[in-house]
């Protein structure tokens, strides 16, 4: 069964360092998302991406965040200068169609710990 894969599964970094989280969405999916989940809390929307550009972003997704799809398969989330409060599980998700028409397939997540 096709699945969304994410790397790394866990990353520990020092505050102020740059982090890149990688995702390989399901191959025939066209819509890509990043969500984050602080331990024990709800899943929070960060950004949606379609046709090589951001289609929606939340207020959490400020200038320190960026996304790109550099090679047609990987979908990356970059955090330029990490803060303690960026510690969370980051989930990548993809869907065949946009919101409202199909399910989100989530990856296993990348746990980011900022020290």
């Amino acid at each position, binding site marked *: 069964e096709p699945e969304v894969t994410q790397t790394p599964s866990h990353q520990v970094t020092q505050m102020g360092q740059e982090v890149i989280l990688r995702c390989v969405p399901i191959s025939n999916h066209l819509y890509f*998302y990043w969500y984050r989940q602080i331990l024990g809390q709800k899943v929070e*929307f960060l950004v949606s991406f379609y046709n090589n550009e951001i289609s929606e972003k939340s207020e959490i997704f400020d200038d320190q965040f960026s996304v790109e799809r550099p090679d047609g398969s990987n979908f990356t989330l970059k955090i330029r200068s990490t803060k303690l409060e960026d510690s969370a599980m980051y989930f990548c998700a993809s869907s065949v169609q946009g*919101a*409202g028409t199909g399910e*989100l397939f*989530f990856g296993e997540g990348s746990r980011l710990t900022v020290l």
Partner: protein
Amino acid sequence: GQQVMQIPQYQHVQEGEDFTTYCNSSTTLSNIQWYKQRPGGHPVFLIQLVKSGEVKKQKRLTFQFGEAKKNSSLHITATQTTDVGTYFCAGITYNFNKFYFGSGTKLNVKP
């Protein structure tokens, strides 16, 4: 801004008891989805509801979408230990390509 509230936050039940979680949106939704997240896992899609007043069943799970398309519920009949996890609703508005997740209801089932 868009808010999707979910209650209760936690529910502890004895195996065999029923369980219900409720989801309420501040605005009308185009549709709503439900996800289950096992402890330490990632959200997994359960179902999507689209029509006003829609009711769908999956074995012991019953999902409802309110007539005004602003609320939804998930009911589990005769819970089992395999039902343990956090259940999230995710509402989608008509204009935006993003899902608003509810705060989740964490279900614990005692054998």
